[in-house]
């Protein structure tokens, strides 16, 4: 079971905007706060950082109280790292001085090994002596992430760190974030409105709408909930954790294992034993009633329908269970009727395509 190490309750009213949140979040992994602009994601992050004061709020991080009826720790006394949408580096300092700005102010002695590791992880060694002017947006954001991480905080807060970058720079930073994700022991709260970033980074998902939490839960469960707009979206997908068990180089394929079987995927450039995120779009899966006798599709797996719903555009959204994994499938409503698909029916799914995310 998930250990809830973060408890947050906040309420704010700005005219027509009512912000009200009561959340318990896991103490490890990446929790993505997902929603449109104006949904209150950034407000939530700012309340957690203490940059925004919400009267009568409550915040507990790893058994230490940051805010309750009596206490309101000012931001500079909270053990956190914050990455802003704009990198927000100090223009009057060099890159290295920016990195040391926070380090000089924490009580514990500087851990040189960890400092070095962070710089390597974000690939900014060659920039240390540079001034901030003249650095690209992507470089600035990597420095900002490093500046927050070297403090070794209890929690890392990231407010749409990729939103101000063009798609090329985004692709430049995403791999760094994925690596972070694998190596960081502390919880990360990551604000975004990009489904791609959700699929790539989230372990736990909080969906926000109009200042409220609309849904929250582990990524796989939340993505495949048919009562949420995400499942209806054309880009709807499921994310599985898979492990490489074999490379079939003669066919340019890799075999991966997940909780309910194996899949053949285009050759993955990673050693056997690596754990990867596999994204399967709902539109790339089809349903058949019996195991096909002869098919060109390699990945055919038995599954059970757990939920099914129709949208207004002639489409049916089906949620299936494979072992402990959920899978979303988009089919036409006509197919649903022809196959007489019902909850609890045993079927086969054919996965025509998928993509490895890290």
């Amino acid at each position: 079971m998930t250990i809830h190490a973060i408890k947050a309750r906040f309420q704010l009213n700005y005219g027509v905007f009512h912000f009200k949140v009561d959340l318990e979040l896991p103490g490890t992994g990446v929790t993505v706060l997902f929603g449109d602009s104006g949904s209150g994601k950034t407000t939530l992050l700012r309340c957690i950082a203490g940059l925004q004061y919400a009267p009568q709020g409550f915040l507990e991080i790893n058994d230490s109280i940051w805010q309750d009826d009596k206490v309101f720790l000012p931001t500079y006394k909270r053990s956190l790292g914050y990455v802003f949408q704009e990198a927000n580096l100090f223009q009057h300092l060099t890159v290295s001085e920016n990195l040391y700005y926070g380090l000089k102010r924490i009580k514990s002695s500087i851990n040189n090994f960890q400092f070095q590791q962070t710089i390597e992880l974000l690939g900014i060694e060659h920039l240390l002596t540079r001034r901030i002017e003249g650095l690209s947006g992507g470089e600035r954001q990597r420095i900002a992430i490093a500046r927050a991480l070297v403090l070794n905080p209890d929690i890392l807060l990231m407010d749409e760190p990729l939103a101000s970058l063009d798609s090329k720079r985004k692709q430049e930073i995403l791999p760094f974030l994925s690596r972070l994700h694998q190596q960081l022991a502390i919880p990360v709260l990551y604000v975004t409105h990009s489904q791609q970033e959700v699929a790539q980074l989230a372990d736990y998902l909080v969906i926000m709408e109009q200042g409220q939490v609309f849904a929250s839960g582990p990524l796989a469960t939340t993505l495949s909930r048919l009562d949420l707009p995400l499942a209806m979206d054309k880009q709807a997908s499921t994310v599985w954790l898979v492990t490489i068990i074999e490379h079939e180089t003669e066919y340019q394929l890799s075999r991966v294992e997940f909780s309910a079987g194996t899949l053949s995927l285009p050759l993955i450039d990673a050693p056997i034993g690596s754990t990867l995120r596999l994204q399967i779009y709902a539109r790339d899966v089809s349903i058949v009633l019996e195991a096909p006798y002869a098919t060109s599709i390699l990945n055919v797996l038995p599954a059970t329908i757990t939920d099914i719903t129709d949208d207004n555009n002639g489409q049916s959204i089906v949620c299936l269970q494979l072992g402990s994994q959920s899978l979303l499938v988009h089919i036409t409503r006509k197919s649903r009727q022809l196959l007489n698909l019902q909850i609890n029916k045993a079927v086969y799914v054919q996965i025509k395509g998928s993509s490895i995310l890290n």
Partner: protein
Amino acid sequence: MLTSEDFDTLLLTAKVASLATVLMLLIGTPLAWWLARTSSVWKGIINTLVALPLVLPPTVLGFYLLVLMGPAGPIGQLTRWLGLGTLPFTFEGLVIASVLYSLPFVVQPLQASFSAIGAQPLEAAATLRASPLDTFFSVVMPLAKPGFLTATILGFAHTVGEFGVVLMVGGNIPDKTRVVSVQIYNHVEALEYSEAHWLAGGLLLFSFTVLLILYSILKSQPVAHPLK
């Protein structure tokens, strides 16, 4: 050429202007910071009060200061009660009057600089464990450097150039309140045009040079570009 009396007035002018500039920076910095950050209802009133000397005839300010600091005025009574005598026609009185008169030249550039920095660098510093005071010294002051430079130079130069307030509050006492601008007036009154030329020309050259230096520094160092 300049007489020894002229040199004394130059020295006194430099003393008044330096002391007034230091005091204006000490008072003006927190005041400008407050004005730049507050959303208080008092902001408009304080802004207006600080800016008043820009539009008031110096004699009006001088007149009120004379009345307030005089033996019958509340400030005068206070200073007498403290055993300090009264301030008009003293060096101290002249410095106080200069501070009030030139304060907008210090507060306004600082306030503009502080406003341009915005909230973001302050928030970044807070998330990096810097207390508000620490942030002021380690982030705000370096980023507002052009503002401080402008404030110092304009405050000093404007104090050097004042005349009306000096005459009202300070008078014309050698070595105490007789500054360059008053001495030029004395020379002209006595029809000593050659001496007046030397001092007036000197002051013109001084003001021109100081402003030229200021603008060339500011040109090479664009005002407030706190973050990108």
